[in-house]
């Protein structure tokens, strides 16, 4: 299934769910959301139909056009690269939740830069710099209270 189709179907389900919920509200409360949910769903169906129609129309020329299009666009990053990036982001969020900002920020910066081929000195310097910016810039300078980390809260 094409990514466009998956996206449209996911949004359609979300909007259908919102309609079902909105019907339980009083009239003044549901009026405005429904004014835009319904047109959004109509536009979504039209866009989906256009996608399907475009797919059928272009499939005949696809074999001829594909090499030229691919050459013009340049090499596409592999699926693995996307998965790796998502994994890094999720890991960063988990680290923040468990360890707090003051530990997870330098740790993440160090791990990411080191595992992507930077030298030890650069990785350590960047992570210390990030820690300094976080602590002196945000905590002390801008007086922002940062999340301490669940593990530290439970065991400290």
């Amino acid at each position, binding site marked *: 299934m094409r990514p466009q189709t998956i996206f449209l179907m996911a949004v359609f389900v979300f909007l259908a769910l919102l309609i079902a919920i909105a019907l339980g509200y009083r009239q003044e409360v549901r009026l405005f959301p429904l004014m835009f949910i319904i047109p959004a769903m109509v536009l979504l169906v039209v*866009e989906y139909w256009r996608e399907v129609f475009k797919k059928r129309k272009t499939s005949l020329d696809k074999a001829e056009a594909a090499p030229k299009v691919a050459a013009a666009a340049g090499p596409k990053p592999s699926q693995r690269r996307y998965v790796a990036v998502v994994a890094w982001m999720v890991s960063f969020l988990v680290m923040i939740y468990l360890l707090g900002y003051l530990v997870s920020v330098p740790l993440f910066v160090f791990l990411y830069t080191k595992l992507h081929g930077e030298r030890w000195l650069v990785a350590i310097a960047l992570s210390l710099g990030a820690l300094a910016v976080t602590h002196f810039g945000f905590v002390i300078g801008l007086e922002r209270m*940062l999340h301490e980390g669940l593990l530290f809260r439970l065991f400290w």
Partner: protein
Amino acid sequence: MLEDIIQGLLVIFQPQILLFMLLGVVIGLTVGLIPAISGLVGIAILVPFTWGMRPELALAFLLAVHAIAYTGGSITAILFNIPGDGASSAATLMDGFPMSQQGKAGRALGNALMSSAMGGVVGGIILALLIPVVRPVVLAFQSPENFFIVLVGITFIVVLGRGSMLKGLFAGCLGIVISTIGYHIAFAIPRFTFGATDLFNGIGIVPMCLGLFAIPEVINLMVRGGTIAQAGMTVTAPRADLIQGIKDVFHHWWLFLRCSTIGAVVGIVPGVGAPVAVWVAYGHAKQTSKHPERFGYGSEEGVIAPESANNAKEGGSLLPTLALGIPGSAAMAVMLGALMIVGITPGPTFLKEHLDLAFTLVGTLIFANIVGAGICMLFATNLVKVTIVRSQVLAPLILFVIAIGAFSIRNNLFDVFLSFGLAILGWAMRELDYPRPALFLGFILGGLLERYLFLSLRVYGWTFFNTPISWILIAIFVLSLSSEGIKPLFRKVRRKGTT
């Protein structure tokens, strides 16, 4: 009114405001030099940190960042043939890079930096002159007119923006729907919160901003890898050449004035944005030049024209943003969000209640452009070293700033997770070519739209649209939507007629 104008302009000379403007200029230049991080993304990342600042401080800082990002972008366009700020610097590299290749990089930089500085000043002056003219018009707006002007504003950015109108309309509607999450404005009934108490006050502007604009660009940086400029590229820009480039702008002063005016006027039209302003100015310069054959091969006029328009358009795009609450560009949509964060509602009431702040922004535009160009002229060849920073260094640094920014608004980790969750939507829209500014605009104006609708229905009933201004706005709304549908039909009819 004169008192407000003077007060607003004097504010920019306060030490704290000067300091933050200077900081904004430096950040804006750096952001502009890095193609992966446009001025729009730069202010999206910085918006969370303006929470708690005085409105004039926050807005001066953000406007300085945004206004100067274009200046920074022209440096990489000239030196490396890489448009630093996306489409807005693309016209500059047409003649800027050939000039670099001919050994005239310094002259091209002088052309660009002086045109940018003076173009920004002209844009600010045009804005200052138009505010008093627009003010009596907006004073006539009540809640029905406000409802339709907001609707027209959302439609404009959809119709006139890039890409398919259908996708734009869909994105705008989706943004408005998302804005309804949270308590109803009058009845305090939570809508679409799915039981999450953190959503009772709705989705914040900051998580939406970061999720839609900032995080997808970091993902792109992480996936793409590499450096922006090729390693080993050397750059020289002798001071004498810079000065010659500055003199060229005065030599072509009439071209400069015309293109600045084009930029400012195009900037006023919501949703049109930078690409149109710079290419219209470039095309005009070529058509009116005594040597059009030199364009594309290293003509100074080919650098002066787009650079003047590029910075002047910011003054123009601020006018509908402040006066009508209709952002002139995607970045102005984020500025709208910033205005709301600092507690100011843009739109017709803004010029009634915050005229002094409007002129503070005029002063900021002028000051930031002059100082930004000055810094560039002193440090141009050193600043470009930012472009050889590797993505594996840049990405985690930007990501941690985003993560702190998302948390710091409400000291709530939920906002951080929400930002990254919304980044899935932002990333999908980026890859599938759905206009994110349209969704963001629908999101930030959706609340206003509902408020004006609610008030109009309460005060005037279902015939609230029956006022002269409302009818004009409805006509504009219908015409702007139907024009995109009618154009292909006209083309078909014309083709049938000629065969």
